[in-house]
């Protein structure tokens, strides 16, 4: 699909699924895009776990061979996929179309201004119970689409997971819903490595 076809599709309610790594996604992506990790082995499983089947999807991945394979995998898994963005972000930008960013912070930033954020923990319950940041809201990626409206729209949300894979997905959903979400790069692995305080069990 060329950029104008993608734009028309999203105006008609289709959602862009961005399969690039978290950093390039955060730097610049198509408006309203969701992001997820690409991997031939388990993209289908992860999409089934995390994405509602009723979404109509347009894939954005770079370079192009990844996008083509991803479209096939998602179609085989029964998703309604319209195609992929040909020419990637470059083609989109050439036409002067709008893009969005996802703000990134690291664990030191988060630790330094913890009071300013509601921490959203995009891991599973067993991981959360083992160790989480005090006051963090448990928010597994499989529930994120359904539960996105539970979170305060006006408070900044800092989204964490083990690294920044699941948290990028959850942050992209929250931003699509209009929340002020930032992605914490390095996640709980970095947080624990720094020896920052944690809570165990509960929730």
């Amino acid at each position: 699909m060329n950029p104008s076809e993608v734009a028309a599709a999203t105006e008609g309610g289709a959602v862009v699924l961005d399969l690039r790594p978290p950093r390039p996604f955060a730097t610049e992506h198509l408006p309203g895009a969701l992001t997820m990790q690409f991997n031939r082995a388990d993209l289908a499983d992860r999409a089934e776990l995390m994405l509602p089947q009723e979404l109509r999807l347009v894939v954005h991945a770079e370079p192009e061979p990844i996008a083509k394979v991803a479209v096939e995998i998602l179609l085989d898994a029964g998703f309604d996929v319209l195609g992929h963005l040909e020419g990637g972000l470059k083609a989109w930008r050439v036409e002067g179309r709008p893009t969005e960013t996802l703000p990134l912070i690291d664990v030191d930033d988060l630790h330094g201004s913890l009071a300013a954020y509601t921490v959203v923990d995009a891991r599973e319950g067993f991981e959360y119970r083992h160790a989480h940041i005090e006051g963090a809201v448990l928010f597994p990626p499989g529930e994120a689409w359904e539960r996105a409206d539970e979170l305060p729209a006006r408070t900044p949300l800092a989204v964490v997971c083990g690294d920044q894979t699941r948290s990028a997905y959850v942050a992209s959903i929250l931003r699509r819903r209009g929340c002020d979400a930032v992605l914490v790069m390095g996640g709980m692995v970095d947080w624990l490595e720094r020896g920052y305080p944690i809570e165990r069990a509960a929730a």
Partner: protein
Amino acid sequence: MIFKQFRYEPLFQASYLLGCSRAREGFVVDPIADLGLDFYVLEAADQGLDIVGVLETHVHADFVSCARELAEMTGAPHYLHEAAEGLVRYEFTPFGDGETLSVGQIDVQAIHTPGHTPEHTCFLVTDHARSDEPWAVLTGDSLFVGDVGRPDLLVGDQALDVFGETERAELQFRSIREELFTLPDHVEVFPNHYGGSTCGGVNMSGKASSTISFERRFNLALSQPDAAAFASFVRETAKPFPDNYQWIKSYNLGLITKDELEGARRA
């Protein structure tokens, strides 16, 4: 660290993907066109790695490189040793001896090891997440498992034939002895070829990795007492030349187009 060796069995060729699993960035080393661009792009994507550099140990003579195309597709620089300047007819990003390229906690240091070709370089890999000591070395066509890269594949291109064959063999001998065999014992060796590859002699092992200490003790070519003995040993144990190597080398140097290469192969 993410470290993958890809083997293309028909040519006994090994290429590599290495990167930092935390930084999610990686390098591809010595990609081969027979596996194809999609192969490398998808393998890197499966590991969650963005390809941020395409490195070559040298300009190859026995297989068609896809480093230029892979660099273009990914937007990553194509790195070759600076001695390739003036030899190749395309743009690349030069590095010097001892220079280090990094992704996250992984360092890749260039060790210039001329002999097989003038620009030949090995890549010393350190994963600082494990240790500040090097872990592995990608030896290209200098040190093979059980053998060495042949110093006589420049013939097809007279412009490159700057040293005589014996001089190049001596250079290869010194490069390996002084630059590679001085590395710590535990350093793993990952060559560009193995087994039946015609880039080395009859003693090449089918095993596609080794260690510095094992090769220092048991590599027959390097057990020769001096450079002259090494040169004759290499000549005597050489295999036949690789198919079409002059044409392949010319293509990899950017002297002829892919169509010209295909035409020459058909003729």
